[in-house]
């Protein structure tokens, strides 16, 4: 079994239901406690769309429900009862023009297609009242960071509502993925969210391999997991450095920052890129680790482990850190579940979802502990990242014991099977990355749907700000550490 879930089914075995029946099926699965992993549509013809919902049961099994509808008929929104569906329904509406009846918040996700360039048209809500005021921030922010617009609706210093308008980063990824040989898309996939190159590349590779009927050898999977965990450590360190700098805690900013350098330079030793570019390819892994490089990697990991403990101790015991983070930007467990938050944002609110916990492949041979925090505030999100760094370091040390060397390997990937639907889910450092591919009767790619965890978690940030002070926005934002381009595609 492969390390990340890749569920492949012949399209013929997935009945195309009527939209009404499909909605009822999705509802009943959700009522029984399944989780919505994704929901999207593709154009079928001028008037019609094919809809897909992927659900996950508690044990990790994925199942797929499909439907056919016309743009005009559409469906009656799920969002009112299951807010987790909100971003998916908005996306289907924006991409295809499918009617979603009674959706409470049918605003553009990323201003693509016919919405391109209409950034000024975003229908912000208004807060009415005598002394309320609005603060608009962005799209260009003060630091070196991707663009996005934030509109704070405040009474005094207190934010009552934050609305987030995204789309500035829209590059047309999904359309580009349908050009050229589907087996050669790795360089493009690695830039969907460039801080998660390994995570997205793995979701892509697993999907292509499933379509080509290939299951990669143990050492290929292990090498990929090493890349994924290094990426996680590096980005968690980067986030902690940013959090420390946002509260003026310079020792944290510089120490976590330089340890990140050590982590990304370790990736560079193995694959030539500080961002893991070129590490994964369908059918293989190009990371090269001989005895010399392995020794450097081990030394770097133990240096990170030793030094991170020293700065963690200083950081977590500082009253200023506790004071700024505790009780700020809280998302309750209930809210996280309702909104369908994923990854570290969910785990910091007491929702223990982690695709690695199902123990498949490399994560079965060396289990990964799932870290969970309960308080759902900035403190929990920072603490969770600290814990996850430790878990990943331990995992990597065990993995390097088992695999003292990696040679670049690439197995030939044959033609993709015709008429298949595949969904792959990879637990990247932010959360689950979902790629869905469908081939036509000739084995050509008919559709490629990409989902970065940020798509779902941005709403978590908006909610976290409610009844918080506007001056706490930077730390709330950094504690979620979401991707703009991952949302905008």
């Amino acid at each position, binding site marked *: 079994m492969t390390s990340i879930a890749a569920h492949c089914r012949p399209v013929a075995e997935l009945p195309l239901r009527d939209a009404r029946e499909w909605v009822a099926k999705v509802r009943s699965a959700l009522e029984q406690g399944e989780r919505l992993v994704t929901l999207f549509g593709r154009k079928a013809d001028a008037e019609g769309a094919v809809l897909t919902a992927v659900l996950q049961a508690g044990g990790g099994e994925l199942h797929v429900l499909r439907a056919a509808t016309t743009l005009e008929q559409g469906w009656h929104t799920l969002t009112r009862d299951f807010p987790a569906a909100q971003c998916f329904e908005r996306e289907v509406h924006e991409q295809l023009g499918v009617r979603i009846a009674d959706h409470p918040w049918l605003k553009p996700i990323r*201003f*693509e297609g016919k919405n*391109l*360039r209409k*950034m*000024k048209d975003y229908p912000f809500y208004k807060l009415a009242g005598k002394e309320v005021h609005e603060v608009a921030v962005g*799209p*260009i922010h*003060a*630091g*070196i*960071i*991707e*663009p996005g617009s934030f509109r704070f609706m405040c009474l005094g210093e207190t934010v009552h509502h934050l609305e987030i308008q995204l*789309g*500035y*980063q*829209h*590059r*047309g*990824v999904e*359309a*580009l993925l349908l*050009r050229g040989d589907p087996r*050669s898309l*790795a*360089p*493009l996939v690695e*830039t*969907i*969210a*460039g*801080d998660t190159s390994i995570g997205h590349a793995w979701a892509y590779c697993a999907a292509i391999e499933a379509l080509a009927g290939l299951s990669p050898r143990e050492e290929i999977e292990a090498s990929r997991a090493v890349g994924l965990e290094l990426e996680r450590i590096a980005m968690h360190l980067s986030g902690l450095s940013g959090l420390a700098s946002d509260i003026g805690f310079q*020792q944290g900013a*510089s*120490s976590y*920052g*330089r340890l990140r*350098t050590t982590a990304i*330079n370790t990736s*560079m*030793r*193995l694959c*030539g*890129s*500080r*961002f893991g*570019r*070129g590490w994964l390819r369908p059918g293989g892994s*190009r990371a090269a680790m001989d005895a010399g*490089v392995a020794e450097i990697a081990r030394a770097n990991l133990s240096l990170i482990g030793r*030094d991170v403990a*020293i*700065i963690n*101790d*200083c950081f977590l015991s500082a009253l200023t850190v506790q004071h700024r983070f505790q009780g700020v930007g809280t998302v309750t467990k209930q809210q996280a579940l309702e909104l369908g938050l994923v990854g570290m944002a969910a785990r910091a609110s007491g929702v223990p979802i982690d695709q690695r916990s199902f123990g498949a492949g490399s994560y079965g041979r060396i289990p990964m502990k799932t870290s969970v925090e309960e308080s759902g505030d900035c403190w929990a999100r920072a603490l969770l990242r600290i814990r996850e760094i430790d878990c990943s370091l331990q995992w990597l040390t065990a993995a390097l014991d088992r695999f003292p060397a990696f040679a670049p390997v690439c197995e030939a990937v044959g033609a993709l099977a015709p008429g298949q639907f595949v969904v792959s889910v990879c637990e990247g450092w932010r959360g689950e990355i979902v790629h869905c591919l469908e081939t036509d009767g000739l084995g050509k790619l008919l559709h490629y749907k990409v989902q970065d965890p940020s798509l779902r978690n941005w709403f978590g940030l908006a909610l976290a700000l409610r009844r918080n002070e506007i001056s706490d926005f930077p730390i709330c934002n950094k504690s979620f550490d979401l*991707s*703009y*381009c991952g949302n*905008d595609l």
Partner: protein
Amino acid sequence: MFKSLKVRKNQGWQFIVDLTTAVPAGFRGRPVIAEKPCARGCVECSKVCPTKAIALDSVRIDLARCIFCNECALACPEDKIEFTSETRMGSATPEGLVIVSGRARPTPVATSSALKKLFGRSLKLRQVSAGGCNGCELELNALANVNFDLQRYGIEWVASPRHADGLVLSGPLTQNMADALQLAWDAMPEPRFVVSFGACALSGGPFMDSPALDRAFLDRFKPALFVPGCPPHPLTFIAAILDLLGVE
């Protein structure tokens, strides 16, 4: 207090002493094309290149397009192409970015006496990401960390375009960012200049064929500096900007 001292002791000195000669071990940087003939009729390298960076006859790699994926080197039956860990490859002109066999490095960045006079001792930069994937943005942030410490040269990032002398642009320039980018540029006082950072800004990179881009800004305002890479290594930027400003 003791914890803080312990961190300080543990941290030691982290800065890279000489940024102009540092070579990052393992980095896939500037390519070299060997001076040997290609197999007859062979087009393997240009065929696999995802960004159409390679022209043939004889083999040339345009670093404005190259994303350093290594596909060409692996595809070449003659092992003609090799990527070195050399980071120095910025250029002041697009032509200077073309690597040919027999020419080991791109045209070095010539010092601009005008820019040297204005900004040689103090340069304030504003960064704008117009579709960047956060690779370039992270590397630009890294320039200010304790390892690279670019501030030692009087080069600093500023929050407002009003305080900036240079605009460092990353990303392929999306349509949805076109207006905001123009606004930021308009807010910058003269004299000012553009630095194009990363394959996406230089050529559109992996997104060059997308209709969601609008690159007209770069036709109106020609960059003074081109920094190739995907993302570029911080050292690539440092060498290029120091050369441009004549900083020693």
